[in-house]
């Protein structure tokens, strides 16, 4: 392979791989970041192919392997995959709902060398949490899983996605994470792509709710300093500048779908006209260096105004391509979250329609994530 010789500008080595081992998941969270069109079980990569992918990842300079889904524990070969990642020197992070794990399996994962577990919670209250997940008993099971993780000595991160039905307990979820024995907690306000976009009208909180929750969580940083690290992803609908999505397109991470397609971000398939390559036909490094999708928005050459002449263009890289597409119709535009975007009004308009929302959301309002039913187009 002569990838390095054919590329005009130097491309830095990837840092992380998000491996969606499967899209199967017992839970039905209405904000799931998986695409609305989920990959079927039949077409999933087999164990040997995943092992090759992780070997190639390590050789390409990748440090962190994020084993995700769907629910990665739905894969029977999870322990074998973890052991392989360990063997090739990757740092393994299991991103799980906890459903499908047992105490015995957690011990096997620990023995295989698993480095870190990231456990999702849906709320700090059982009834609400199970309603959001669309799965009775999920909350209770997660408490067991957290205990098993602590027993085997693997560091635990608790991860909570914030939306209207749980935003009143954003701060409480930090405390709950401490009670679960987590060393780190991610409080992430919903980002409106994929299933979350389908469910936006029942997920999005009001500006006042957001401000209160953000202040509450920020206030806990000092309380828990040295005890738990709080990673706080605040909602960008009220921000002045966009986020550097994925730390820059094709700059840090690659996302492999259950069927083997490699994406610069998990929502990249929503952008029309991008050509994605698959691990079935190309090596990971070849895809990183040469696939059209990874090169489409690399660097700054593709940018339009106001990004093109903006001093922040190498800080936020114009924000999120998928959001630019969804809200302006052109993925090359500035992410309209940016106050300099001529489309910025649209964001404020959307946000304003949620200023007077009812905190009570019933399960019947959600379109739950599922492999089986087709979601009606908006």
């Amino acid at each position, binding site marked *: 392979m002569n990838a390095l010789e054919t590329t005009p500008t130097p491309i830095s*080595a990837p*840092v992380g791989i998000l491996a969606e081992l499967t899209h199967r998941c017992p839970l039905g969270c209405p904000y799931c970041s998986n695409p609305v069109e989920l990959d079927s079980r039949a077409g999933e990569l087999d164990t040997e192919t995943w092992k090759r992918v992780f070997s190639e990842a390590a050789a*390409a*300079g990748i*440090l*962190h392997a994020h084993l995700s889904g769907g629910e990665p524990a739905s894969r029977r070969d999870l322990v074998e995959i973890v052991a392989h990642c360990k063997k090739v*020197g990757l*740092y393994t*992070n299991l991103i799980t709902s906890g459903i499908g794990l047992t105490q015995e399996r957690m011990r096997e994962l620990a023995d295989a060398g698993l*480095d*870190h577990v*990231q456990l999702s919670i849906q709320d700090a209250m059982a009834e609400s949490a199970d309603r959001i997940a669309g799965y009775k008993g999920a909350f209770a099971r997660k408490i067991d899983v957290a205990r098993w993780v602590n027993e085997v*000595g*693997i*560091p635990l*991160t608790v991860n909570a996605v914030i939306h209207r039905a749980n935003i009143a307990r954003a701060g409480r979820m930090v405390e709950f994470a401490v009670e679960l024995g987590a*060393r*780190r907690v991610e409080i992430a306000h919903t980002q409106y792509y994929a299933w979350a976009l389908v469910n936006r009208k029942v997920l999005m909180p009001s500006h006042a709710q957001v401000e209160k929750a953000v202040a509450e969580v920020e206030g806990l940083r000092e309380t828990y*300093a*040295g005890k*738990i*690290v709080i*990673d706080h992803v605040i909602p960008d609908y009220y921000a002045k500048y966009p986020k550097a999505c994925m730390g820059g397109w094709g700059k840090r991470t690659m996302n492999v779908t259950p069927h083997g397609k490699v994406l610069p971000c998990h929502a990249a398939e929503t952008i029309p006209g991008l050509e994605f390559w698959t691990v079935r036909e190309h090596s990971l490094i070849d895809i990183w260096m040469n696939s059209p999708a990874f090169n489409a928005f690399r660097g700054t050459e593709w940018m339009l105004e106001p990004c093109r002449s903006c001093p922040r263009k190498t800080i936020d890289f114009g924000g999120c391509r998928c959001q630019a597409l969804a809200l302006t119709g052109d993925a090359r535009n500035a992410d309209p979250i940016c106050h300099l975007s001529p489309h910025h009004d649209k964001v404020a308009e959307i946000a304003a329609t949620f200023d007077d929302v009812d905190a009570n959301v019933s399960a019947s309002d959600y379109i739950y994530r599922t492999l089986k039913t087709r979601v009606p187009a908006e």
Partner: protein
Amino acid sequence: MSDPAEIGGEVKPRLPRGVHLKHDETRGEWLLLAPERVLKTNPIAVEILKRCDGNATLSEIVDDLAAQFKAERARIETDVRALLGELAAKRMVDL
């Protein structure tokens, strides 16, 4: 716990499970890998972290570094405390 001056000399710092000091061949540098974090480390930090094995006390680590690099003990101690305090706050070192 994270105030460097308050760390006792008798603590035995160690990297907890899930935190690794790794020499990265691709980039040719030492990195500290932790959950969702990659920290670049300077040569001094590498020497300190290599000694955080859960057996050596902070005082012993400082003595060892002072002897090996023929440097002033007080200065080394300041560096060690600053690094360990910072990493303990991030829960990347256990004291």
